[in-house]
């Protein structure tokens, strides 16, 4: 199971824009992992600095975030790497 919080946040935002609590609920739904608020905002801060997500204008207290093209590319790369690992493992299991 993927447990890197940065990947989980990017994967959640890949579906569409979300605010913090929305991301927490979405991640819990598709992985079962309950990200704490401290962890989530630590990741959001890092992803913003890396330019992989950006905040959207909002009048509400809850500010939504959007994945940037750089973030999308990074996510695709990570998924490709994971996919390669999964495929290799599956192939080896078949031959074992």
């Amino acid at each position: 199971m993927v447990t890197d919080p940065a990947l989980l946040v990017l994967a959640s935002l890949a579906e569409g824009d979300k605010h913090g609590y929305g991301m927490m609920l979405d991640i819990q739904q598709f992985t079962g992992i309950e990200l704490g608020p401290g962890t989530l905002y630590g990741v959001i801060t890092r992803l913003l600095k890396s330019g992989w997500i950006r905040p959207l204008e909002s009048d509400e207290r809850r500010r939504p975030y959007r994945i940037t093209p750089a973030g999308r590319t990074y996510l695709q790369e990570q998924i490709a790497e994971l996919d390669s690992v999964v495929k290799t493992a599956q192939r080896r299991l078949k031959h074992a």
Partner: protein
Amino acid sequence: MRRWIGLAAALYPRSWRAEFGEEFRAVLDDVKPSWRVFANVFRGAIEMRIVDGSNWAKVVAAMAVAGAIVGFGVSYRVAPMYISSATISVTPVADPVRPASADLLRERALQRTQELQTLLMSRAELATIINAPRLPLYRGELRNEPLQDVIDEMRRNIRMTRLPSSKGHPVPIMLSISFSYPDAPDAQATVRMLVSKFLELNQRENQDRNRTYRDFWGDMASVEHLKPAPPAPVGQIADVVAAASLPVRMQPNYFVFLVWGFATGALLGFLAVFVTRWPRHTKRVAAFAAAGFVSALVVSLLIPNRYKSTAIMMVQPAVLSENPLAAASSPTSSAEFLRQVEPEILSADNLASVIQNTRLNLYRSEQSTKSIGELVREMRANLSITPFNSGSAFSISFTYPDRFKAQQTVVAMISRFYFLNQEKQRTAMRGMSFRQRAITERKAGAVLDVLDLPSLPVVAVFPNRWMFAGAGLLVGVLIGAISFRFRRPGTPKAFREFRVGPKPDGRAEARPHVGLLQIEVDGTDYGFRAG
């Protein structure tokens, strides 16, 4: 709980709160409050302060202060101790038949007090108190520890202090006995028992001396047809000046807890800063530390255990020091006795004879590879003779891989002490008249006494496995830290380029990340990643 979480959220850096504070509070309003959420927010605040860069010193300071507060709080949770005290006086009786100077009387009273203190602290006496049906003490400890260790703990909790004598009155000797224990009634009952044992032991000492005195004079009268013996000396009077007091509640030392909490907090703060700012370095150091811990633990398991057996011997003052023939002689000094006998005990000849004792068969595996001189030196290093309680007693201890042999060796050493003592007396008696010899013989019979028989150790004194593992851990951390100096810089094998789009402000910048370099050329971001 929401209040606590709000306080933890307030620990985030001001600049961070300005940017994310409002939405973060909105998320905190949505989540169900719990200690888990509090811990997560608190950890996030610490992490953010460290990532913030310039605030690591503040983090360490905050952690240290938090540690001190926790330490202070913990000190209130530690069970208090209760101390009960009593005061006893020891007075020498002025004897008109055997006049003695005031200094000598005081010296005798002092010696008797020390003697009784030593007897009271003996293993046998303390074991009787611990197992007294009305108390019994240290129930929890007795379930997990050998009796010897519990007795040692009780010795640490008993305090005997000589109180200063009033001006112009060197006697009686005033002695305060106190005992600290987590249970107030038990502390008071124990002091009562210690006091009654002290008085009882004093009475027994007086009776023993008087009996010996009367026997001696009876023998003298029948041999030399002397006139009837003068009355036996009364000895020393021990009395209770102040009975066991109501126990006083003693809180733990808050300052010690405060300092410990502060130091632990600061250490954790440094650790948190290191882990957050240098995660890869942390992994490397942690790997070395774990390797050091495990290796040291394995090495300690390969080292054979060593056990220590201990006995306590007491040097009694000469029984007949108060007889009229010997006049008012000064009491026998145990320190003087040790000074005379110890060199012979530790002599190469004596130790060689113990090593070569076929019943003990010490250093069996080393006898073929080492000379007897080397074995004697090794034995001398493992043997310890230490005077204590102002020299009225001394302990003999021996450390050896076999616990039974350790005990038997101490038994053999005690026999050597007895033998040498008798030899010393025989030499002194050469050329003496019958009467003088009879006196000296009585002195010889009473000079030496075994107070605590040689213990059969249960727990090994060496190696201390956790200390070994801790040292291994520290060495591992050190090697891990040094290893960074010799690490070769990693060179990427290949690069992949990808275009990530223009930056709105058109500012050129290069931001290194772990395995990733982003650079902007003509308003377009490019990323280079080690592939």
